[in-house]
């Protein structure tokens, strides 16, 4: 594994480019399914604090990948490297490779276009202080959609995809801050979907919600993976088990183990994973 990473780095240094390096890496692992995003040999520092240590992980297309691990192990940090939200942290240093469709996410793709293609929903719902309609239309407008009819269509479709059109269709002009917490979070999902992303990042997006809203969002994620690649951080083992196809377990900035969710929960290879999923620490 480490050799593979080293070889990937070498290939990158050479003329082959990212695509070839990735092909090499996949061949090495005997992997078939296409990865939508990958991180390879990722090291991240906040100042002198080494937060992510040599993390390599693939995120398969149109699947749900769950990131689990105790608080502070770097799950959110990893998510934020995927859409470069870490750029906003003044002394954050990222080394290694992050790819989207085989392109280097930090060099080949302009940051605003990366963030359009990789959407993010935060732990706390953060609707803008504007109307429900304007919240959803914010992204499309940012990326140049001005036509009224087209915007109307996008707003309706996004709210339908987020399973809340019927709840809000009569109050689109009302402030989004008047919605309940669960509705606000689904609005944030709709807002993220409105720019037609390819990848959706969810950072403990149900942890602030009641069980009914949580169930709705879990169901939604199940629907969304038909068209999107979903990467979610969760503290809830059952949630990971219910909705994810792949699970990666993190501990103190290292990725301990990753694989099909069933395997991680039923026959983990690493004893630390076994302890964590059995609830023995965390």
């Amino acid at each position, binding site marked *: 594994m480490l050799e593979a990473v080293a070889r990937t780095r070498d290939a990158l240094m050479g003329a082959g480019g990212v695509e070839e390096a990735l092909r090499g890496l996949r061949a090495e692992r005997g992997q078939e399914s296409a990865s939508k995003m990958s991180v390879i040999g990722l090291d991240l520092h906040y100042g002198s604090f080494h937060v992510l240590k040599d993390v390599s992980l693939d995120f398969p297309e149109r699947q749900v990948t769950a990131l689990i691990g105790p608080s502070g192990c770097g799950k959110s940090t990893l998510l934020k490297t995927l859409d470069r939200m870490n750029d906003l942290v003044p002394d954050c240093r990222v080394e290694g490779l992050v790819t989207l469709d085989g392109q280097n996410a930090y060099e080949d793709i302009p940051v605003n276009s990366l963030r359009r293609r990789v959407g993010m929903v935060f732990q706390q719902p953060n609707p803008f202080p504007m109307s429900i309609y304007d919240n959803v239309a914010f992204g499309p407008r940012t990326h140049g959609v001005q036509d009224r009819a087209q915007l109307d269509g996008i707003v309706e479709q996004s709210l339908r995809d987020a399973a809340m059109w019927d709840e809000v269709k009569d109050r689109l002009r009302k402030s989004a*801050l008047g919605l309940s917490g669960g509705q606000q979070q689904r609005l944030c999902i709709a807002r993220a979907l409105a720019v037609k992303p390819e990848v959706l990042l969810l950072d403990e997006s149900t942890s602030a919600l009641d069980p009914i809203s949580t169930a709705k969002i879990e169901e939604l994620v199940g629907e969304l993976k038909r068209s999107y690649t979903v990467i979610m951080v969760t503290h809830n083992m059952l949630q990971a088990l219910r909705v994810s196809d792949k699970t990666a377990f993190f501990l103190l900035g290292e990725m301990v183990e990753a694989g099909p969710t069933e395997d991680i929960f039923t026959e983990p290879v690493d004893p630390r994973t076994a302890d964590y999923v059995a609830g023995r620490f965390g």
Partner: protein
Amino acid sequence: MSSKVLRGLVYAGATITALILVGLVAFILVKGVPYLTPSLFAWEYTSENVSLMPALISTFLMAALALLLAVPTGIASAIYLVEYASETSRFVRLVRVTTETLQGIPSIIYGLFGLLFFTTLLGWGMSLLSGAFTLAVMVLPVIMRTTEEALLAVPRSYREGGFALGAGRVRTVFRCVLPSAAPGILGGALLALGRCVGEVAALLFTAGTVAQVPDFASQGVFALFDSCRTLAEHMYVLASEGLHVGEAYATAVVLLVVVMLLNVGTNAAVGRLNGRTKGDA
């Protein structure tokens, strides 16, 4: 026992404050209202009618011009400091310390600066322009500080939400951050307006005390170089001459009403802004 004493003190304090305020207003009204004659509102000032009309109009001109200069500059600087500059930069810290210090400086110092700089060095003389620039310099720190505070109070999550959708910094600041800071910024502008309307010391030697409205009709922009007096100055001059103390009180009544109307108006505007952003559902 001691909590009863404390509560007594709190009530006493509140009562005394209320009494002083009510007493002050009542005193001004009693002394001033009888002198609110039509001649006090004559278009032309003469030494007999001591009309406050030119001063009233000049007050609006002066305050509007000062805010026109200070509000955009102050808001832009605050946006730069909060949204663009790095928090740890020495320049930012220097600017913060400077604005804080400038806020506490007596207005007579600004008047002296205006006299030396705008009136004398730039040769603008005692004029509407010199006065307005002096006031602008005086209220700039107020506007900067209140805008900064309003921006800092906007949750980080709004900015993150904007960036995460691929919006650039300009769009994020103007569409996600500024609308929720607007009530606070407007509050700061009102505070600045209040200081402009009530200011005397900074204007005596920069705007002068000529009791005429700058004559834009016949002089065009050059009227900016006309000297004029604001209501507060009018009151000060009448009171210090000692010949028209009753009219000085009447002017105080008008000043009180103007400030009150401005307050009501701005509160309504802030309320409407809040209603728009904070939601009504």
